[in-house]
């Protein structure tokens, strides 16, 4: 077997795919086991601290508030984004009216908006939720507008010929046709909501995963900081995974259609 043939063989690839991460993890475990570096404690200690902190000790007091802010903020952003996006997509003059404002607010990093709204609305949790929803609104809003405007005019004509009611046309033609883009926007919104949830907590909150992690860093609780980082990493990964799975199922028809078009 030639070198190229060997390096492309399936059993080798599979071994690499599973073996390398496992090896890396094992290396981290053993290399850091006797670490005296203050910034990079042993993996074993991190794992212990992780279990101690998050598994049920701080679950209710910190994980729940963070994740509920995130989920509720994301949900509000999605609903508002689709509703507003549909309206703006179907009524171009409205889109032109609000366009520059949307573009400007979107251009400001969300975390910079937080102090403004805190100044206006105070320090409550609602302000944080509002910022998460506001920041996450834009990706789904803009992709909904694009998706609605991109609806095939022929499909719209067909729905008129067959005398669909306005609601039927909206739901069965426009929204369904825009759903690939809407879901893409939602994925980005998901990531934005997660990021803003963390940053808003780090900026100044008493509870929450982000808050705890930064506070741990500031008070040199290195293990606590690492435990927080690991948790955030795992949550970020899981949240993405769940949504991607959901999106793939909802858009199964689209993937098939694209594949068929590509092979033509």
């Amino acid at each position: 077997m030639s070198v190229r043939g060997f390096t492309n063989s399936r059993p080798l690839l599979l071994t690499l795919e599973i073996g390398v991460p496992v090896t890396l993890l094992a290396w981290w475990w053993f290399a850091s086991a006797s670490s005296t570096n203050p910034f990079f404690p042993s993996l074993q200690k991190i794992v212990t601290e992780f279990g101690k902190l998050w598994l049920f000790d701080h679950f209710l007091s910190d994980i729940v508030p963070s994740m509920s802010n995130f989920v509720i903020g994301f949900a509000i952003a999605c609903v508002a984004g689709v509703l507003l996006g549909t309206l703006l997509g179907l009524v171009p003059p409205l889109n032109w009216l609000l366009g520059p404002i949307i573009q400007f607010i979107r251009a400001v990093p969300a975390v910079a908006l937080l102090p403004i709204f805190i100044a206006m609305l105070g320090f409550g949790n609602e302000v944080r939720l509002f910022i998460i929803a506001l920041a996450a609104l834009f990706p789904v809003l803009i992709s909904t507008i694009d998706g609605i405007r991109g609806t095939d005019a022929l499909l719209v004509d067909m729905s008129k010929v067959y005398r669909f009611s306005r609601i039927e046309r909206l739901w069965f033609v426009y929204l369904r046709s825009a759903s690939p883009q809407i879901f893409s926007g939602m994925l980005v919104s998901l990531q934005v909501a997660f990021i803003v949830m963390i940053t808003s907590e780090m900026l100044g909150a008493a509870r929450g995963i982000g808050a705890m992690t930064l506070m741990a860093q500031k008070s040199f609780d290195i293990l606590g900081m690492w435990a927080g980082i690991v948790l955030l990493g795992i949550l970020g990964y899981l949240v993405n995974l769940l949504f991607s799975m959901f999106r793939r199922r909802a858009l199964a028809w689209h993937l098939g259609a694209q594949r068929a078009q590509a092979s033509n």
Partner: protein
Amino acid sequence: MKRFPASVLQPLLGVVGIILLLVLWQWGSTQVSTERALPSVVAVGTALIINLQNPAVWLAIGQTLGIALAGWAAAAVIGVVLGIAVGTSRAFSAATRGLLDFLRPIPAIVILPLVLLVLGPTTEMGLFLVVFGVVLPIAAQTAAGVEAADPVARSTARSFGMGTLEILWRVVLPGASPYIGTAMRVAAPVTLVMVVVAGMLGGAPGLGSLLSLAQMTGRYVDLFSYVVILGILGLIVQAASTRAERAVLHWHTSYRQEGI
């Protein structure tokens, strides 16, 4: 309304929208109990003009843009190299898939505490955060572009006696450039966000820390003016990266393929 062509109506309505917002804002500032909570349009406008004449503010703007740009460039180099490796070698791709797939959805903000700890409130911290924030998407798109390279073009080049490196440079990379271009354009605004976050939360130099300072000392008028400056910067960055992409890839625009 039907009398006006869209090319006139669209910018007109846009301006009307902005005016309406400013009016709403001004009205809102008179309704709020404490003057500082929502400063009037006039107050913010004045502060904006004053601040734009302040060399310290311009220094901060320069630092912000500088770190963002440097990080963007560094991430581009690292990302493209990584992406090429993943795209060309099945073995490398398999070996790194687990790690990269796990790291990619994790936002860079997550490691801010660690980076702050190790590097302190410095430019390097900001740079590191920026690179971390955009390198993986660039790598992923580069890999996709390399994998999508036309095998016919590759075989043709090989039949002409081109070496692997030459094929990479002359055939594969140009073919992958739309993907790379899109990834770089999408990454540009993210770099700005990361610098501001690094400034606000970590004290890295730039507008982020100015903003943080203004908030802590209660100078809300300055705070608002900095946010406006940031918004303008954001728009400039977006416009510049879009134009740059179009300029470099004008010959390839018809090949643009954006995945779902």
